[in-house]
């Protein structure tokens, strides 16, 4: 029997790797690294969230902005033309459509533009009508002149677009912001005929505002006549002065003319030598050749149409 004195075999000892070494070998992050990173994140969040406006992250953000801002701007500038490429590809039909749209819009705008001054004038006129209503205390139903009677008929009448539907009837006073226009002589359901005060058959009781002298204002006919209205005072001895205003005298019950509506002012005074009276020519306040918005004086609080302007409604 012999002892085995040979040195032990030099076989490599089987080594068992620790879990940590195994992780290292496989490229896994160690647990400490992982927890450190997570804790760093949490700490950053807590610090940023809790410190509010004076966050220590802000200077870092500002610095990042200083560095990355120009880069972002550069990238954006660089890439914008590339991103704009789809915009270059437009079909002819699409372009024609765009052009047609644009032209239609331009036409609309131009039409609106042409109407603008007219609408502004109308608004102005209606505003003045409101003022007149407030001044005189009469309620008026607004209407628009839609037709002039022809000169061949030798009567100065106009048609307005309000009729019985707006509560109108014959013998109502028609005014516009400047003063007296005339009176309603005929009404249909949607229109009415107005006899202007300058008509040869029109006579209005007038009163000189300064002296309270009464007289009769009669028309001479003719729209563009330079002597359209004549005032004949009842008291022959009184000579009206140039520039004195004449207002309506008023009829019983307000028909056909309500009182206190301005008619015109004295422009010329002639002496009739044979009769010994004075003939006074009035310059009407109303421009009868450009009548548009007029108002028909209706009873206040009455059952007029919806658009009746009551005193105090506009102020």
């Amino acid at each position, binding site marked *: 029997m012999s002892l085995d004195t040979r040195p032990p075999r030099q076989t490599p000892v089987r080594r068992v790797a620790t879990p940590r070494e195994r992780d290292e070998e*496989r*490229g*896994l*992050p*160690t647990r400490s*690294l*992982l927890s450190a*990173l*997570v804790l*760093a*994140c*949490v*700490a*950053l*969040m807590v610090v*940023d*969230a809790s410190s509010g406006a004076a*966050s220590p*992250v802000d200077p*870092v*953000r500002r610095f*990042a*902005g200083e560095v*990355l*801002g120009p*880069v*972002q701007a550069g*990238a*954006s500038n660089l*890439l914008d033309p590339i*991103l704009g490429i789809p915009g270059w590809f437009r079909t002819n039909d699409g372009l024609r459509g765009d052009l047609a749209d644009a032209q239609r819009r331009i036409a609309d705008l131009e039409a609106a533009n042409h109407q603008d001054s007219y609408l502004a004038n109308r608004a102005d006129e209606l505003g003045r009508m409101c003022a007149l209503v407030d001044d005189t205390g009469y309620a008026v139903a607004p209407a628009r002149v839609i037709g002039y009677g022809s000169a061949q008929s030798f009567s100065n009448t106009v048609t307005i677009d309000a009729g019985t539907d707006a509560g109108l009837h014959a013998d109502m006073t028609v005014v516009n912001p400047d003063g007296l226009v005339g009176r309603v002589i005929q009404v249909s359901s949607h229109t009415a005929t107005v006899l202007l005060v300058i008509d040869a058959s029109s006579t209005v009781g007038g009163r000189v505002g300064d002296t309270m002298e009464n007289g009769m204002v009669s028309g001479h006919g003719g729209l563009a006549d330079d002597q359209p209205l004549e005032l004949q005072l009842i008291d022959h001895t009184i000579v009206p002065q140039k520039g004195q205003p004449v207002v309506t005298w008023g009829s019983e019950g307000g028909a056909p003319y309500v009182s206190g509506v301005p008619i015109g002012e004295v422009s010329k005074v002639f002496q009739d030598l044979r009769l010994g009276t004075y003939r006074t020519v009035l310059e009407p306040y109303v421009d009868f050749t450009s009548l548009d918005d007029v108002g028909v004086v209706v009873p206040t609080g009455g059952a007029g149409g919806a658009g009746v302007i009551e005193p105090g409604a506009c102020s």
Partner: protein
Amino acid sequence: MRGTSRLIVATAGVVVALLLQVTVMPHFAWDGVVPDLVLLTVVGAALVTDPRFATLLGFSAGLLLDIAPPADHVAGRWALSLLVVGYVVGRLAHDHQPAQAGVRPSYPLMVVAGAGGAFIGSSVYALTGLVLRDPAVDVGQLLEVVLAALAYDVLAALVAVPLTVWAFTREPGSRSPKVTPRAPRRAPA
């Protein structure tokens, strides 16, 4: 690819992704939701590098996203989200098959990894927001945005993840031996 070149590729990839995300992607935004290109870059890196690198990359990319100009949320939220994304995607990709140099994962795997990473990242980001009450929106609104972002991310993952994988597995050194040195065409005068 290891060492410095990997670091350079990672940095360049993250910065480019960030720039694209904040400058270009808003043009293709759907209701303000843009694809998270930085997140997808981290996913791509996690697929072909080791989990440690992916985790660290996720942390730094998230930190960059947290402080880069348009950001106004509580800093650290994207850092935590992308850290988790890098770690989880890295672990799942390499637990059974350690990373080998130059081996690219299959295309479906890349897309699935992109979708999963996007889901994890958006969820963690939204959850931290809920805990911190940062954007102060309710859960329904949050869920809607997260789902939209997820859908968009999957779409972007089709391109972004393979690109990143390609950038990381490109071996600049391995190509040079194949090229035989050419003889000079002209003899020097």
